[in-house]
């Protein structure tokens, strides 16, 4: 079996799957925008973990490169996302997503 630092690959993948699922349910079930935001970050990092795992196990550097891109974009997205959350808070005095129901015509 393929090992990375002495740990088998499926362990890494299972961890990533658990992290992704936690993040996904966080996005779906939580109502606080900041927490949803954190959950999104968790999902991104779960994906990053998958990339790194396969990069190591197949000895190809491409996965690591993509991870850098994802991190850079996540940083940018965090900046914009937080700015939006702050703007909404100023407008509505709340960050509760159920209060944000204007996305329809």
């Amino acid at each position, binding site marked *: 079996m393929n090992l990375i630092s002495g740990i088998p690959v499926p362990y890494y993948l299972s961890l990533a799957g658990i992290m992704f699922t936690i993040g996904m349910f966080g996005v779906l079930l939580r109502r606080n925008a900041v927490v949803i935001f954190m959950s999104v970050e968790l999902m991104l990092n779960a994906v990053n973990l998958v990339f790194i795992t396969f990069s190591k196990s197949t000895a190809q550097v491409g996965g690591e490169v993509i991870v850098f891109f994802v991190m850079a974009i996540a940083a940018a997205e965090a900046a914009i996302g937080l700015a939006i959350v702050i703007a909404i808070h100023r407008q509505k005095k709340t960050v509760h997503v159920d209060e944000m129901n204007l996305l*329809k015509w």
Partner: protein
Amino acid sequence: MLELFPLIILLPLLGAFINGLFYRKMPNLVAAWIGNLAVAIPFFITLGSLFAYHPMENTVPHLFTLFEWIHVGNFQVDFAYQVDQLSLYMTLIITGIGSLIHLYSVGYMHGEEGFNRFFVYLNLFIFSMLNLVLGDNLVLMFLGWEGVGLCSYLLIGFDYHKDSAANAGMKAFITNRIGDVGFAVGIFLTYWYVGSVRYVDLINALPYALPYKEIINWVALAFFIGAIGKSAQIPLYVWLPDAMAGPTPVSALIHAATMVTAGVFMIARLNPIFYATTWASDYIAITGAVTALFAATIGLQQTDIKKVLAYSTVSQLGYMFLAMGVGAYTAGMFHLMTHAFFKALMFLGSGSVIHAMHHEQDMRNMGNLKNYMKITWITFMIGTLAIAGIPPFSGFFSKDLILEKAYSHHGIGPILWGIGIAGAFTTAFYMFRLVFLTFYGEERIDVHVKKHLHESPWQITVPLVLLAVGAAFAGFLQVPHILGGGVHILEDFFKPVFEQSLKVADSWGITKEPHVISESTEWILLLISVGVAGLGIFLSYNIFQVKKTVPPKDEEFQGMAKVLYNKYYVDEIYDSTIIQPVMQISDALAEDVDQKIIDGSVLGIGRFFSGLSSYLRKLQTGIVGDYALYIVLGAIVVVFFLFYKGA
């Protein structure tokens, strides 16, 4: 001079363009100068070209191309022009009489609203008409044909704020469309069988056309339907009398001298087709003869001075078609020219009267105008003598030639001649009725009008005098040999145009050999035609000069006079048999088919989907969390799909 020829076509367009762009700001004087020069210069170039072309010896048309127009496969149409005897002749008439009428319009339209606009239309008309006569192919002729139709519509409806003028314009336009369908079908058929729409190819293809002898008749008829519409023959003549709603110079230029003769010109231009017909030309002759008499009888009871002239135009065009039908192309073209002179002259004369009388057109309110308008009176008199066929005025020579050719035509010739003679008698009668009612007899003029009654300004009288000279002397181009000398300048002039077709028709043995008529018969024919004209004038003199009869009020016409005054009720018949049914069908189509079936199905489809959407819309809650859930569900679906597809 021939290399300047493109200018003849381009200058009127340029004039229309400049005046058309700036007519709101342009001073009237400048617009008038531009309009006049844009026609007068081409006239002098045409004159020069006529001599440079040596029409009496030259038998080859001068062809030149301005630019390529349509090239699709084997179908090639260019803005290309053909200068030969026939097109030069027409161009001379159009630009010559056209410039006189432009000059006249300066005086006539003086102070009218839309003075500049008027010259835009006139120049555009000249441009279209020149394309019609000079083009070297049928498509370019059709372009001109439609162009003159458009200008005619614009100019009839020049006073568009008046309902009568706007409606008359529409009537002319729609009636002409019916004829144009025939013309278009003729072009299609020509291309189908010849593979080209150029006249040169048409003539060259003629020798090989013997197997298609029957079809040629139908092609000719299709073209003739076009001519019927444009040249106001039975049954499509009804638009021309109404077209008199336009300003009088328009009536003179478009509805007397040039545009309405386009049908006659077309037959002459397409002589390869019409010479080769076996039976179609007889229909043309019959239509012409019947129209000549029919329109003349309507003219007997009209009271509007311009309406009389309009019906006489229809009638004279009938004579031209009679000539074309019996194969006397030179005679037809001859009458076209003399008619252009005397009819333009009389229309301009009537315009001078109307101008002086402050837009009074009813002859019942005129009389004794000879004391007030000497020049108008004398020139009008010359025109009337010419149309009545009194020697030595021009109309005598051309009409006599037509009647002689009709008489010597095989088969129905003498009948055609009889109808023509009856028409000539009627013509002389109603034209002199017009003269006596207008210029002689008691004064029935409104007192307010009388105070201002005066001869018209020089812009009006100069064209009158020049046209009168033409109307008086143009006939000497073709004098019958029994009257000494035997001048046949026109016959020699046109010979190269018709020669080739005639030769082919001869070789097929379908030329209708005219009866040879002896000199004594010719004398008798001539004396009869002058005699009936004299009789018509004498009767007219008796009734309107000696007995001083004046047409009654509108509602007091009795018996036959009432039928004639109401133009045989043709408009009413057309209205009830064609126009009303068409309107009713259109209404039914609009209400039932369009609104119920078409709109119903289109709107129904829309309503179905908007109904469906009202269910889907419930998914769109606006809550961000719901949307996130949809994204996740969508992603799961995609993942599962990829798994199964991959497996």
